[in-house]
């Protein structure tokens, strides 16, 4: 069984990859590997490696046109993580407030 969420967390754990991903998200069209390396002043090889990790996590789609490869961001995989986090953020906030109320009412 493939653990995709681990891949996603791994993919976005690296600040440089987050920057690349962010750049792809705000770009309204696909960016080529060449364009990305130009923007980040890292080697083409380095970009390719980061893109591969993002692709493995499902965060980037790559299409080849001629000799160049174009990358598009796909933020959907992140939703699973943010939903989990959002649910439990609220859940625990509420729970700790309830604990506070309980302690207030239970003064002895």
């Amino acid at each position: 069984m493939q653990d995709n969420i681990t891949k996603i967390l791994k993919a976005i754990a690296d600040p440089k990859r987050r920057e690349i991903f962010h750049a792809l998200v705000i770009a309204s069209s696909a960016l080529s590997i060449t364009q990305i390396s130009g923007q980040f002043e890292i080697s083409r090889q380095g970009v390719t490696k980061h893109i591969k990790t993002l692709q493995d996590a499902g965060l980037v789609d790559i299409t080849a046109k001629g000799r160049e490869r174009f990358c598009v961001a796909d933020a959907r995989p992140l939703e699973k993580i943010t939903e989990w986090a959002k649910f439990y953020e609220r859940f625990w906030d509420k729970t700790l407030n309830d604990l506070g109320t309980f302690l207030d009412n239970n003064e002895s």
Partner: protein
Amino acid sequence: MKDVIRKEHSFNYPIQKVWDAISKADEISSWFVKADFEAKSGYAYTFSSLEEDCPKITGVVKHADPFTLIYTWIVEGTDIETIVKWELTENDKGTKLVLEHSGISNYPENSAVTFFSSFDTGWNGCIDKLETFLPQQIHAR
């Protein structure tokens, strides 16, 4: 983004009182959720919600020395284990609680989806005290 949710909260009460509230079954049952619980390492606990058709939370107590309580947290219908840790320390106000919930990375993709859908229709409506935040949760999407 990390694989952990962390909450800090201070309570103006002695550490033993807060400890009792989070570790004694009758107290947990009165403010949180109906609990079959013992703060004893190895104890297999159950948190049931008030209505019958709601998913239960089960798990095993991993650590229960005052004032640190750690247990696994498994939502019924999934077999994915996450970890909840309550850590109490005394401070000038009374007691500081640090709560950590970790383990989302244990969810394979599909079970995470199942998990959310069961939770949305399940526990959200099950614990009566959660009612107030349910609407926000839905509209936040």
